[in-house]
C-alpha cells in the first residue's frame, strides 16, 4: 500500500525534518585559516604536535591531491565543492577540567545529553571523573567490564576525551586518539598507517591523508579479546568546517575487537564535507567487527543543507583465518559515497558486509562494498538492504573479485531494495569478476514494493496498517540488525522507526 497518495503525502511531510540531532552547541572554538594550502597543513600538524615525518607524509599527499580530479562516476549529483571555502581545522577551546557536574560547561553537557551518550560515560566525557576513579554511577567491582563501552568523542577536528583507557591498558589494548598515537606510538603508526588505504588511493582519501585532524587508534595485542566495546562518536559542530578523521585499527594475531562509530551534525542550510578514512588490519586468526550508525544531518525537506559523506573504509584480512565484518546502518547525510571493503589476503580469511541504507527527502546514497579475494579458501558474505522513500536515490554498488590464486573462494551476495513512493529510485550495480574456476560466486538482488499480500496477511490478523508496514520493514532488515551489538541494535531499530515513521496512512 505504500504507493497510495496518502502514504506519499506522509513521507513527504515527515522524513528528513524529523532529524533530532540538528542543534548547534554554542562553544568557543579555534580554527585554522580558511582554505587549503601547505601552510594550513603545517598549521594542523603543528597543532597536533606531530613529528616531521608525519608532516612530510601529509604534504606529499597534498601535492598528489592537487593533481587529481574529483570522481564523477557515482550516481550522485551535487554542485561543485569549493575546497578553498572550508575550514580544515576547528577545535573547542579547552578549559581546566571541571571538578563536579556543576562546573561543567552546561552547553557541552547538554550536547552529550542530547546525543544520548550513556550517563556514566557522560560523566567521564564531561571531565568530572578521571578514568579509573570510582564513580557513583559505575559499580566497577561488581561488573568490571560488562555493559561498558569505551568512547572516543571527536568534536569537529579534535578528540575531546577517550574513556576507559586505563582499564583497556590493563588488557594491553591501546585505544586513543590518532593524534596521541602519532606522538606516543610512532612505530605502530609508521608500520601500519596508509598500508590499507594508500596515501593517494582516491581523491577524498588523498585529501584526508593531507588534512586529517583526528580519529581513533586501536591496537589489540596478540591473543587478547578486547574486554569491552570500543566506540567513537563523531560530531561536527562548527559552520563551514569539514571533518576529516582517520581511524586505524590493528588486531594482532588471535585477537578480537568490536568497534562502533556514531555520527551526527547540526542542521544547517549549507552543505558540510565529511571525508574520513578508516583502515582495519587483522593479522592471523584475528577478528574485527566494525559497526556504524551513520546519522549525519541529511538536509531539509527541500534538499537544502546536509552532510556530504565521502568516506573510504577498507579492511585488510592480512593474516590466515582472520575475519573482518562491517555492519552499517545509514540514515543520515545528504550524500553518501562509501564502500567499506575487505581485502581477503590471508588464506581462509573471511569478510562480511551487512548494510541497511535508508534514504528519505532528497538524500542520495551510493554505497556498497568490495570483497577482493586474493587468498585460498577465502569467503565473503554481503547482505545489503536499501530503502528509498521521498525523492531520494539509493544505490548499491559492489565489487566481488577473485584473483587467479583465490582457489576455493566463496561469495554470497544478497541485495534487496524497497521503494516507498514513486518519486524515489533504487539502483543496484554489482560487479562480479572471477579469474578462478574454483571460486564460487552467487549474487541475487530484488527490487519490490511492500507486498500487498504481506500487508493483507497482517491486517487480517488485526494489525494496524502502520504497524504492519513497520513489521514488514523490520523483517526486511532483520538480517542486518542481528549483526549489530545489542546497544546499537536498539538504537538502529529506533532510527529505522524515525526514518519511516508515518510512511503509511
Amino acid at each position: 500500500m505504500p504507493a497510495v497518495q496518502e502514504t506519499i503525502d506522509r513521507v513527504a511531510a515527515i522524513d528528513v525534518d524529523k532529524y533530532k540531532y540538528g542543534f548547534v552547541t554554542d562553544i568557543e572554538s579555534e580554527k585554522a585559516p580558511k582554505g587549503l594550502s601547505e601552510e594550513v597543513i603545517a598549521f594542523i600538524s603543528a597543532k597536533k604536535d606531530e613529528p616531521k615525518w608525519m608532516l612530510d607524509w601529509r604534504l606529499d599527499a597534498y601535492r598528489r591531491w592537487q593533481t587529481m580530479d574529483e570522481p564523477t562516476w557515482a550516481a550522485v549529483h551535487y554542485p561543485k565543492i569549493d575546497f578553498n571555502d572550508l575550514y580544515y581545522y576547528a577545535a573547542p577551546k579547552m578549559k581546566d577540567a571541571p571538578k563536579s557536574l556543576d562546573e561543567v560547561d552546561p552547553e557541552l553537557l547538554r550536547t552529550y545529553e542530547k546525543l544520548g551518550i550513556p550517563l556514566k560515560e557522560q560523566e567521564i566525557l564531561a571531565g568530572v571523573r578521571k578514568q579509573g576513579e570510582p564513580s557513583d554511577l559505575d559499580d566497577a567491582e561488581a561488573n568490571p567490564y560488562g555493559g561498558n563501552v569505551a568512547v572516543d568523542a571527536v568534536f569537529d577536528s579534535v578528540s575531546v576525551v577517550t574513556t576507559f583507557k586505563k582499564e583497556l591498558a590493563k588488557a594491553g589494548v591501546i585505544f586513543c586518539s590518532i593524534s596521541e598515537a602519532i606522538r606516543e606510538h610512532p612505530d605502530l603508526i609508521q608500520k601500519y598507517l596508509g598500508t590499507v588505504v594508500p596515501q593517494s588511493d582516491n581523491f577524498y582519501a588523498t585529501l584526508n591523508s593531507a588534512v586529517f585532524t583526528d580519529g581513533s587508534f586501536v591496537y589489540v595485542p596478540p591473543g587478547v579479546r578486547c574486554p569491552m566495546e570500543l566506540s567513537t562518536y563523531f560530531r561536527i559542530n562548527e559552520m563551514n568546517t569539514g571533518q576529516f578523521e582517520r581511524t586505524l585499527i590493528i588486531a594482532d594475531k588471535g585477537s578480537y575487537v568490536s568497534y562502533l562509530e556514531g555520527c551526527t551534525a547540526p542542521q544547517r542550510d549549507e552543505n558540510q564535507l565529511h571525508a574520513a578514512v578508516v583502515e582495519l588490519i587483522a593479522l592471523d586468526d584475528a577478528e574485527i567487527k566494525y559497526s556504524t550508525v551513520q546519522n549525519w544531518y541529511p538536509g531539509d525537506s527541500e534538499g537544502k543543507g546536509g552532510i556530504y559523506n565521502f568516506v573510504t573504509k577498507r579492511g585488510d584480512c592480512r593474516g590466515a583465518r582472520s575475519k573482518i565484518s562491517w555492519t552499517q546502518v545509514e540514515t543520515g547525510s545528504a550524500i553518501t559515497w562509501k564502500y567499506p571493503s575487505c581485502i581477503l589476503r590471508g588464506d581462509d580469511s573471511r569478510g562480511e558486509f551487512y548494510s541497511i541504507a535508508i534514504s528519505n527527502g532528497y538524500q542520495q546514497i551510493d554505497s556498497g562494498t568490495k570483497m577482493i579475494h586474493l587468498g585460498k579458501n577465502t569467503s565473503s558474505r554481503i547482505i545489503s538492504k536499501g530503502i528509498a522513500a521521498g525523492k531520494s536515490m539509493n544505490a548499491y554498488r559492489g565489487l566481488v573479485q577473485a584473483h587467479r590464486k583465490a582457489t576455493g573462494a566463496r561469495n554470497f551476495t544478497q541485495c534487496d531494495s524497497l521503494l516507498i513512493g514513486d518519486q524515489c529510485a533504487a539502483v543496484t550495480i554489482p560487479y562480479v569478476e572471477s579469474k578462478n574456476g574454483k571460486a564460487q560466486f552467487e549474487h541475487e538482488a530484488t527490487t519490490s514494493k511492500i507486498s500487498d499480500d504481506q500487508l493483507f496477511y497482517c491486517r487480517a490478523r488485526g494489525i494496524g496498517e502502520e504497524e504492519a508496514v513497520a513489521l514488514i520493514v523490520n523483517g526486511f532488515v532483520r538480517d542486518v540488525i542481528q549483526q549489530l551489538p545489542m546497544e546499537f541494535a536498539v538504537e538502529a531499530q529506533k532510527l529505522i522507526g524515525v526514518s519511516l515513521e508515518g510512511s503509511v496512512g
Partner: protein
Amino acid sequence: MKLTPTDAETALAALYDAKKADFAGAPLAAAREDAFTRFAEAGLPHRRIEAYKYTDLRARLTDLPPAAAEAGEENVAGILAGYPPLVEGAARIVIANGRYVPGLSAAPANVTVTSILDPAADLSAVGILVAGNDDPLTLANLGLFEGGVVITVAGEAGAPIEIVHVATADALVMGRVAMSVSADGRASVIERTLGSAAVVENGLTELTLKEGAHVDWIRLVDGKSDKAVELNSFHTEVPESAVLNHLTLTTGLGLARSQIFGHVVGHDAEANFRAATVAVGKRHADNTLVIRHDAVGSRSTEIFKSAIGEGGTAIIQGRIFVEKDAQKTDSKMMSNALFLDDTGEVVNKPELEIFADDVICGHGATSGDIDEDPVFYLRARGIPEATARRLLTEAFIIEALDLVADEALNDALAERIRTALAAVVA
C-alpha cells in the same frame, strides 16, 4: 580530457572524409555527419568509459584493416554455397562487405527488401531507434556504414529469414539492417556472418515492431580466427502486446561485443533475451544489454549462460532500467557462468535501475565450476565421469535455447554448442 587519436581513430576519420563525397545530398547524409562528429569527439571507447570497462576497444583495435571494397557476386555465391541455410526453406538476404546483394537474395511472401542506399527505399523507420544514442559503436556505424537493407514485413512472413553477412576479404565492414514488422505481423530471423577469417565487423540493426507483432531473432557470432572482431549493436522497440525473443549464440574465436538496446514501450509487451556463450581459445565474448521499460505492465526476461575455458573471457553486462511510470513491470535477469578449467575469466555486471515502486525486478549472477553432486549422481548410474561432465556442461548452456521452438533449429544450435565445447570438454 581529449586523448591523442590512435592510428585506428585517424584511419576512421580519413575513411569518413573519403566517403563524404559519395553520400553528399543523400537522405541520411545529415544523420551520418552528426553521428560521426559525435563519434570522433569521444573516439574509440576505452576502459575508463564505464560501459567499455572490460572491452577496451581503443587498446585492442590497434591496426584496423582497410574498408572493404564491393564484393564480386560470384565470389559471394561461392562462399554461400558452402553453407546452406540453418533452417530449411529460409529465404536469404545477403549483405556482402556491408552492401546489399539483391542478385543473391530472396524475399519470402509479405516481405520486401530494399537497399538502404536505394533512393526509393522507405526510410521512415530508419534512424528513429538510434536517435540520441551516444554509444560509440552505434555512432561509428551510423557515420560509416557502406550499405545494408531495409526490410519490411507486412503480416506474417512467408518463410524464415536468414540475413547473411559475407566478408570476402580481411577488411573493415560496416553494414546496416533496418527491419520493421507491421501490427500483428510475425517473422523469424537468423543472422550470421560468413567468409573471411580476420574481418573487423561493426554491424547495426534497428528492429521496429508495431502493436501485437511477434519476432524471433537469432544471431550467430562465431569468429573464424583470433583476429576476428565482431561488433554489433541491436536496437529495438517493443510496443503494446508485441513479443520479441532474441538469442545471441557466441562461439568461435577472436573479439566479440554484442550489444542490445531494448526499449519496451507498450502495455503487455514482452521482450526476452537469451545469450549462450562458449568462450574458449582466448575468445573475448562481451554481451552487453540495456533494457528500458517505459510502460505500465510490461515484461522482460534475460538469461545469460556462459562457459569459459582455455583463457577465454566472458563479459556479461545487463542493465534493467524501469522508468517512473512503468508500474507493474516484471523483469528478471539471470547470468550463470561455468568455468571449464582454471584459465578463464568471467565478469558479471547485472544492474537494476528502478524509478517505479510497484514492480518486480530481480537479477541473479553466479560463477563457478561444475557442481560435483550431479556428476556423482550420474556416475552412480554408470555414466563415466567424462561423459557426465560433458552432458552437464552441454545442458547448462543449452538451457538458453529455451525459446527456440523450431525443433530442427534448436537441434542445429545445440550441435554448434556441443562442437564448441568439444575442444575443452572431453
